[in-house]
């Protein structure tokens, strides 16, 4: 199964990019999109972080194993 990496862009004075080196295995693009949506919603619902006062200003940048960006998901889209 292909592995995808969910890097997170977040507003920060410098280097607001949390790189995902571990990734998740997903069977197809639909499953990937659903997984990224679920993850974003779950974070917005329950993850309280000092570094991220507002999840709505974050986005996921998803890459495949070759490093190509395959999906960009602003959290504001996941909140709809």
């Amino acid at each position, binding site marked *: 199964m292909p592995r995808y990496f969910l890097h*997170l862009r*977040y507003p920060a004075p410098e*280097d607001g990019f*949390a790189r*995902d080196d*571990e990734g998740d295995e997903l069977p197809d693009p639909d499953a990937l999109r659903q997984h990224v949506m679920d993850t974003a919603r779950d974070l917005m619902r329950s993850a309280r972080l000092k*570094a991220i006062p507002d999840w709505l200003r974050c986005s996921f940048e998803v890459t495949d194993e070759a490093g190509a960006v395959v999906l960009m998901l602003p959290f504001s889209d996941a909140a709809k």
Partner: protein
Amino acid sequence: MHPPQQLSIANRLLASLRAEDFASLQPYLEPVPLDMRQVLIEPNTAIGHVYFPETGMSSVTNNSSGGKIEVGVVGREGLVGLPIVLGIDRTPYEHFMQIAGHGWRIAAPDLEQAMAQNNSLHRHLLRYAQASHVQVSETAFANANSDVEARLARWLLMCHDRVEGDDIPLTHEFIAMMLGVRRPGVTVALHVLEGMHVIRAKRGVITVLDREKLEELAEDSYGLSEAEYTRLMGTEP
């Protein structure tokens, strides 16, 4: 195999027993490797052995949410199999090794018999039961009161207390499961700690660089249960 000598034991609970209490356990203690992911106690199953880790860290988890969420940890400061000390034969929680190590084990009936014959041994282990209860209560407090950064700092400190050296072998996915947070939440928090030069995170290994700062970042979520352990057991955890 020679029986263990109390002076050379790293497990704080065994090391802090009175010499005669230790002697009553000594013939029954068997050295065991504690491998990564090894299950020491299955939920809702009669406990066969009680474990005293020398190194490594075991995790007490609730597995009912599909994944595992950690509710307690045990390393060299304690024992795995507390229900036996309390006269109970099983627990709803799983106990497994999250950081490999080694330790001692004793068959549950042998420990029960030793406690029945030796009140001072039993009383010492009951004091540990209270110390463990305080740790679990502090986890509940941290989960309600603290943000992910502080909870992560506390959790790394608890791991650091129980490993030799400064390297803690852990993936982000694993930490996420243990803290009950999605992995990107942990990755961001680790990224922030790394930016402050408090830790270094490489694939699968977290290195503690500045423990003092980590304690500061854990705010009031770390320290109370460790101080209470020291007060109750007469030795640092």
